[in-house]
């Protein structure tokens, strides 16, 4: 099996695993980080080191990092928490959120939930490359807009939004900016000292950390204020109660430290693999690349392609030895073709016949060659089998 689904999740790096292990053993590092005794202090110290490691990856202060269970929780906390802090829905004032149609489901569904409570949400349509331009976002701002929620890197097609240009213009207008950076951390250089993002969501398992832990960056200057969505012991500056999972938190910290140390090498490796695979697969007649093709506005670690003229489920089935994400309806719980590809204007059938290849540290050039050979052969075979007029 060749694994090319690193944008879905990554394995835990050996070094991360080694860092986590002591906190899973019953020999003194099991303490509750909130306890005021020796084992508690040790756990607390490990949590705070990890907080600094996460902060360092994105140019933040440690005190701006709030631990969560993952990016889904971070996104929920950011969006619901920001509105609730402003009195929504109790004070009855109109509130407006701007987001895009190609956000992750957890952002879209959070927004839909807020709509049921009376919020107004603009779901903007991206351009043909999946990009939300700052101009399009600013044009959607109304006097009631309190929050813009936009992903930095799209998880399906790798489009990089121009957050650097958008952020200061929202700041001028007094509109909060939340960024889902689950696919951006470790893939793009992020420095929140220079980019005026208010809230930013992170996930550990997208960058060789464990599943079940994430973080929300909450800016201190100017202070981004949130109402908690999880109530309890007042942990995490009162924003997210619950005993911290020390081993998970330590894993996320180690993963972020590793991502920072390996950043240049990782990005060069992924970009090389992506470009090598595209060089091979673009020889397939009619193949379409979904998302941007220029280097600096495309995430380095993924490649999304459509293969018109082949049926999506058969394409996926014929690549049984390769783990990739599929735009096929049959691969999703919702039984609908990718809403991201449809937002780009792809029809259902083309969206169905789409594959997302994403690359990791362990992906080799030989694997890319093998995958290219297989995909080229299987697309040709399925087209040969088809009675429909040839594409491309």
């Amino acid at each position: 099996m060749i694994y090319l689904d690193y944008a879905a999740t990554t394995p835990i790096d050996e070094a991360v695993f080694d860092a986590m292990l002591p906190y899973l053993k019953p020999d003194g590092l099991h303490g509750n980080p909130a306890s005021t005794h020796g084992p508690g202090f040790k756990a607390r110290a490990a949590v705070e080191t990890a907080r600094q490691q996460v902060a360092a990856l994105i140019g933040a202060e440690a005190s701006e990092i709030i631990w969560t269970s993952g990016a889904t929780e971070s996104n929920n906390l950011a969006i619901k928490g920001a509105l609730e802090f402003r009195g929504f829905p109790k004070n009855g004032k109109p509130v407006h959120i701007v987001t895009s149609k190609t956000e992750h489901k957890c952002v879209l569904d959070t927004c839909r939930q807020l709509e049921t409570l009376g919020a107004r949400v603009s779901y903007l349509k991206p351009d043909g490359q999946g990009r939300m331009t700052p101009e399009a976002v600013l044009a959607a701002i109304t006097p009631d807009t309190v929050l813009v929620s936009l992903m930095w890197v799209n998880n399906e097609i790798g489009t990089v939004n121009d957050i650097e240009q958008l952020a200061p213009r929202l700041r001028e207008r007094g509109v909060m900016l939340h960024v889902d950076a689950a696919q951006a951390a470790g893939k793009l250089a992020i420095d929140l000292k220079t980019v005026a993002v208010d809230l930013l969501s992170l996930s550990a398992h997208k960058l060789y950390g464990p599943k079940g832990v994430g973080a929300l960056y909450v800016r201190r200057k100017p202070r981004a204020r949130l109402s908690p969505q999880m109530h309890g012991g007042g942990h995490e500056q009162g924003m997210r109660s619950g005993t911290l999972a020390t081993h998970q938190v330590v894993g996320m910290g180690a993963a972020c430290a590793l991502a920072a140390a390996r950043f240049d090498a990782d990005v060069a490796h992924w970009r090389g693999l992506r470009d090598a695979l595209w060089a091979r697969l673009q020889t397939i007649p009619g193949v379409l690349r979904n998302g941007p093709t220029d280097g600096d506005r495309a995430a380095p670690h993924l490649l999304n392609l459509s293969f018109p003229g082949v049926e999506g489920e058969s394409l996926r089935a014929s690549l049984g030895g390769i783990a990739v994400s599929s735009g096929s309806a049959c691969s999703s719980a919702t039984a609908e073709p990718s809403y991201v590809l449809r937002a780009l204007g792809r029809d259902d059938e083309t969206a169905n016949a789409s594959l997302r290849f994403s690359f990791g540290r362990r992906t080799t050039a030989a694997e890319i060659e093998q995958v290219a050979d297989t995909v080229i052969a299987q697309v040709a075979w399925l087209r040969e089998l088809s009675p429909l007029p040839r594409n491309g």
Partner: protein
Amino acid sequence: MTETDDGNAFGYAPEIWRLFRNAPNAGAFPDGTPGVVSAEAGTPAARSVLRLALRFDGARVIDGRFQAYGCPASIAVGAWIAGWASGRHVDDLRLLKAAHLREALEIPEDRAHCALLGEDALRAVLSRYQEHQA
């Protein structure tokens, strides 16, 4: 579902998988081949198309071919019918129903339309055969 050595990562029924991967009888007869009757059927909902071509010697099929655009089950149905029909009398062909296809290929309920696609394609061929005879 568990991954198997033959690449059947999504756990298709063994016969569907075998016919999908090997696709026996895939293709079309060369233009001008005598005795060939071909027809197409499609399911708009699932966007599948099956083209079936049977070569007759009188009332008996001597060979079959298929082309398919669709899921693995649709492709397997085409391969199965093209092979099954060979050597059979036209009266036997009329007896094939979607239920037989579902049983032979272990086609699940949510893919029943693939079996109907096969039945429709065979009926279309037989209807055309009838026209040729008239």
